[in-house]
């Protein structure tokens, strides 16, 4: 890899890795897997897309990560189904992580937001995090999640409405 590209990628990852990990943690609540998904996404970006313009890396990186998160949920679902059918086949299940707080420091307000966020459907969580937190445009979010821009608008509006309702209800 050319040294300037390597340096630019290093800067990009330094700026993105923490938020990417926190986003993965907010969605899957598994420190080890979140780290692995972020590392795999970094690796894939480097291997496949290092020659792309630097401004393309953000949407590409989050597309890779969101696909990996979706695959992670599919695998979990499959394991659950398999566990129900053949309990002895999944006896090597990893222990459930104690809590996200051991790896990510959350104050009370943060914990409330994350808890409310986790009560939304996955697509709404992903859309909300990419639009509101990562500050992606509707178009970038649609690309990262491989869905239409109209779907992004719908998920974002629903997520915002639900979150506001949940957090307001807790206050009352």
């Amino acid at each position, binding site marked *: *890899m050319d040294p300037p590209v390597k340096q630019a990628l290093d800067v990009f990852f330094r700026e993105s890795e923490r938020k990417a990990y926190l986003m993965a943690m907010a969605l899957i609540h598994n420190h080890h897997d979140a780290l692995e998904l*972020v590392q795999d996404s970094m690796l894939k970006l480097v291997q496949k897309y290092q020659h792309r313009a630097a401004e393309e890396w953000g949407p590409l990186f989050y597309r890779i990560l969101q696909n990996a998160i979706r695959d992670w949920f599919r695998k979990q679902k499959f394991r659950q189904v398999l566990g129900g059918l053949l309990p002895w086949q999944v006896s090597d299940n990893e222990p459930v992580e104690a809590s996200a707080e051991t790896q990510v420091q959350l104050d009370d307000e943060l914990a409330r937001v994350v808890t409310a966020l986790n009560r939304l459907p996955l697509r709404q969580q992903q859309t909300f995090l990419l639009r509101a937190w990562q500050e992606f445009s509707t178009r970038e979010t649609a690309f990262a999640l491989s869905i239409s821009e109209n779907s992004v608008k719908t998920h974002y509006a629903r997520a*915002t409405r639900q979150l506001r309702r949940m957090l307001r209800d807790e206050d009352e």
Partner: protein
Amino acid sequence: MNKDQQFQNQIKQTLDRQSVNPETENALRKARQAALAQAPDGGMPRWLPATAVACLLMIVVGVLVTGGDHPDALPPITADELAVIASEDELELLEELEFYIWFEEDKNA
């Protein structure tokens, strides 16, 4: 700024307050270094030798099978097309055309 935007900003500020412990910071640094260390170097692309062999094979097979001029035959495959057929990277590139279209539209928007 409407009520939705105010609420979204408020949530963003709350999420921005998250921090990770030093152990996780360290793990992320290692992950970054590992990803960068495994990057292919700037030498000959991996797919080039395979593409060259595939091109040669296609030409030989083409000559053997057709054995000469056929007026109704399909137009010959160009070198560019052969490279696309033979290269996994090129195929991936074609599969991601939607990204390029999106990116161009985004720039022009």
